[in-house]
């Protein structure tokens, strides 16, 4: 179920990146970022017999409901980074719009 959502998010993100409008670039980057975060969550975090990596492989998982917490830490870092990058991208696009007066990327030759 979640993998379909990820696929759709990737598709939407790339579709937006390929559009000509500037605002769409930000949307595209946001969608791609979130799709990647979900991908980390699904592939690495949600396993049927997932157990924290600091437990030995041979040890029985002490509690069945305990999940691996490392991917969540990775996601947290990735979210912070993509937040910073999107903030920079917003400023960049605003400045580009100010300097060139264009919002259509194809005319920015």
């Amino acid at each position, binding site marked *: 179920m979640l993998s379909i959502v990820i696929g759709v998010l990737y598709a939407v993100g790339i579709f937006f*990146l390929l559009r000509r409008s500037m605002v769409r*670039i930000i949307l595209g*980057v946001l969608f*791609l*970022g979130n*799709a*990647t975060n979900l*991908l*980390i969550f699904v*592939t*690495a975090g949600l*396993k049927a017999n997932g157990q924290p*990596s*600091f437990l030995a492989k041979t040890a029985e998982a002490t509690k069945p409901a305990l999940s691996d917490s*490392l*991917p969540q830490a*990775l996601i947290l*870092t*990735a979210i912070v*980074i993509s937040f*910073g*990058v999107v903030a*920079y*991208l917003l400023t*960049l*696009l605003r*400045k*580009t719009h100010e*300097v*060139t007066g264009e919002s259509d*990327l194809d005319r*920015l*030759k």
Partner: protein
Amino acid sequence: MIVFAPIIIPLIFIILSLSLGKASGAVQRIVFMAGNVTTIGVAVTILRRVLNEGYLVAQAGAWEAPYGITMVADTFSGIMLTLTSLTVGVVSLYSMAWREDKLNKPVFFALIFGLQMGMNGAFIAGDLFNLYVWFEVMLISSFVLISYGSKKIQLKGTLKYVTMNLVSSFFFVAGIAVLYSAVGTLNMADLAYRVREANGELNLFAPSALILMGFAVKSAIFPFFFWLPDSYHTPPLPVTALFSGTLTKVGVYSMIRFYSLIHLPGDVFYTQLFLFIASTTMISGVLMATSQFEVRRLLSFHIVSQIGYMIMGLGLFTRLALTGAIFYIIGHCIVKTNLFLLSGIGYKITGTFNLKQSGGLMKHKPFIAILFFISALALVGIPPLSGFFGKFMLIKGGVESHEFIHVASALGVSFLTLFSMLKIWNEAYAKDIPEDSQTQDFQFGKAPKQLVISSVILVVVTLSLTFGSKFIIDICDTAANQLLDIDGYIRVILNR
């Protein structure tokens, strides 16, 4: 604990240079140069210690290896640390005398240190996710540097650069996620250990393809290099010189580091893949360069072409070829930066970056012409200059591995490189000043001494690569040997 120093020292100097915003320009500059000198000192210390002790390992927060964040320096990292900090230092010296584009601001100094911190972090990261984080630190500083000044053409270039690199980062993280689910670790030594334990039964195709995509865009290899020539000629020249010498090398470094872990010797798939990438990168870069008449664009396409040689070393994956690739990285970084610095000096003198409009440098400024001549020949690889040894070892390694097609393309590309360098030489140096500019009582500008001095430093380094080649090649050989000795790497980090 010296392993952390290459990260902490630039961080301290970021804070220092930003907090000195109100101080006088001289104080700011002294702090800037002091930061650079300190970083070079630390890098050289690490290189010397690594040569004596083999590996320097530090665990952040004293968490044991596969769980905590590992920082590890081996000879290859030591070489790269020294090389980049030296380049950054020289370019800093140059940028202070550039006097255009409002470069000498505390923010600019802080950004340079930020870039340096990101690169150093990437060189000593022992953990794949940590590597990603340092990539981002480096990228964000470079985003701001490349758009520094916000000229119209620059913003257009920046937009391409930013978008391409962001998308590649997302692919890289996705690759890391899939890799984690397949192997269950992100520590590079543990990763190598588990890949070897599994004896080829792990299917790592998807993660390594995704991660390759991430590295490929950053190191500008075929077919992901189009952002580079579109954006590298736009920022202020010192920034271009800095980027051309260092940024793509970080991508190449990480590729060699990561793929030497999962690339088992004798694995035909990776060998052929990397050799194919190497040849196509070399050829497409150099062919596009031949049609350029803007010096900075021409040199940018050459960066792409020469990345191919470095990847060739990874593809062949023998001791000789890796030694050659590392030596080539050293020579290329210095020479390429210097060619950009010299084109900046040429710009100061003739007032243009366009080859067709410039000329007469040989007649009127013979000293600069000599500097250019040495650097250009070193780039092409005329013996006995630095490019020769790297290419020679690579080609010998290729012949030993019977990869004759790729050897042939490497040799052919050398000739085309020579052609491009001759073009710059003929247009900017040997020919006379064009007639139409002579009529409007044309005058040569003056290049500040400091610009010439920083270029001279790099030429001296290039020459010392020739005279000290035995010494340097020995170091590269140690580095290559360490890269192939995965078991030693695992043993040191995991104590297994």
